[in-house]
């Protein structure tokens, strides 16, 4: 029932992208968010598409998986594309029916915007597909480290994130277990009018809340018992390692940026 939920969408495989340091991947993905907006003609978009697909093929993540991540936003993409097609009035008039007018500029603009959105989502899902959630959190904590100077609780924030990530599978398991237990007692979560169905979730939610609070309390106690006192002077089990390939990847991205600058209109 809950088997279709893959948290963080991580796709286990062994690829150069999987082996990259999470920090370099985060920087690259963040940087990519900006340079996508540099593209404004066919050549630059072509370059971006080529770059993105080479990266995807390097990651060994099947396109089918990537498509699954894209599905939820496809509607948005199509909608934005149509808006642009119908509302941009530039270039030659291609088609006219009543008040509907489609211009060449609108079609091009629509395609560009759709491409932009798709590329953005593909690249960012590639980040989560090739990096475990825990690695992302660790990387974020490192990258945001300098903000500690301004008393930003970076460590606490990262800890909160890793704890919630750690407990998502547990919570899912628990949900499934309680759901089954109530179904065995004749509960029906899948049919009936909406009002009844909403009510049917009470027997699921109450036990989940109770056990979550209990678990949080136990965890806090266990952490205190083992002398946890925040991030000060704490070493880590999984140290992040910056390799040559990380530097290389960022250089490649810089090169792409340069090319985009040169080739754009």
């Amino acid at each position, binding site marked *: 029932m809950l088997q279709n939920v893959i948290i963080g969408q991580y796709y286990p495989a062994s690829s150069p992208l999987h082996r990259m340091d999470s920090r370099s991947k985060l920087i690259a993905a963040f940087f990519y968010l900006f340079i996508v907006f540099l593209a404004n003609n066919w050549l630059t978009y072509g370059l971006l598409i080529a770059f993105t697909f080479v990266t995807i093929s390097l990651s060994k993540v099947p396109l089918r998986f990537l498509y699954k991540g894209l599905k939820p936003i496809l509607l948005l993409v199509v909608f934005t594309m149509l808006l642009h097609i119908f509302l941009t009035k530039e270039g030659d008039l291609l088609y006219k029916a009543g008040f509907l007018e489609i211009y060449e500029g609108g079609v091009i603009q629509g395609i560009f915007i759709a491409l932009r959105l798709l590329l953005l989502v593909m690249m960012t899902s590639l980040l989560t597909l090739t990096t475990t959630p825990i690695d992302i959190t660790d990387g974020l904590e490192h990258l945001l480290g300098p903000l500690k100077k301004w008393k930003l609780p970076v460590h606490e924030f990262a800890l909160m994130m890793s704890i919630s990530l750690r407990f998502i599978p547990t919570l899912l398991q628990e949900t499934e277990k309680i759901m089954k237990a109530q179904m*065995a007692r*004749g509960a029906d979560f899948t049919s009936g009018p909406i009002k009844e169905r909403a009510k049917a979730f*009470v027997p699921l939610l109450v036990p989940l809340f109770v056990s979550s609070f209990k678990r949080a309390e136990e965890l806090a106690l266990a952490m205190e018992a083992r002398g946890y006192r925040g991030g000060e002077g704490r070493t880590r089990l999984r140290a992040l390692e910056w390799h040559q390939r990380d530097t290389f990847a960022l250089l490649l991205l810089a090169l792409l940026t340069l090319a985009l600058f040169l080739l754009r209109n």
Partner: protein
Amino acid sequence: MEGTPFERRALHDINLDIADGTFLALIGHTGSGKSTLIQHLNGLLKPSAGSIKMGSTELKAGGKKQDLKSLRKKAGIVFQYPEHQLFEETVEKDIMFGPRNFGVSEETARLTAAKVIEMVGLPESVLQKSPFDLSGGQMRRVAIAGVLAMNPEVLILDEPTAGLDPAGRVEIMELFYSLHERNNLTTILVTHSMEDASRYADEIAVMHKGELYLHGKPTDIFSEREALQKAGLDVPETVQFLQKWNEKSGLNLALSKFTVDELAKQVSQSLKKRGN
């Protein structure tokens, strides 16, 4: 999760007939597929191949939506740590949840609640309390009462004594056994404990790596000690003792029940005989 790197075959090649009124112990190492198997019995999981037949209801692989509700009424499952499923304001309401879902009237359900709470050894005054004010052991009993209230013909128990103290274990197991005898139930007990299996079961089925590894009467199963050890199990302590005893004394004693009392009786009798 089919078609993903997470896909795994949980059960394979299982042929198991359970006659009415049998007390079957389903035993196996962690991850051997016991819990997965019992969840198929009332349609919580559906088989990807093969079929499950209970009474007149049959669940087939790829079959259409079948009448799961009647199946679920017939087979009551007490899950591991069943106290986690309590949710109502009062114990009484929680026990009534099952019967009410199966269309029993409120009054009848209330009467049933009063009946089953006594069956599980709790005073009737508990009925009006919140289940969250009870102790862990009491909560477990309330949850069990909630399953019994559905009046199932087949009672499926998934490690019902996990996490209880030794006295609580014995009490709960005795409760299930007496219910089994009195109401002529078919009982399927999932357990790690050979001791429990040997004490209560008419038949034992051993699961290993998702397959049915051994199935038979306890005496037959216990004679295959090596096979059991291969599956990460062992014969109960009473049988271990007796086997050693037989080896040393050259006798051929057998147990009719696998309790310590029975063992002591057999051994003392043989000693007396030798004394004569």
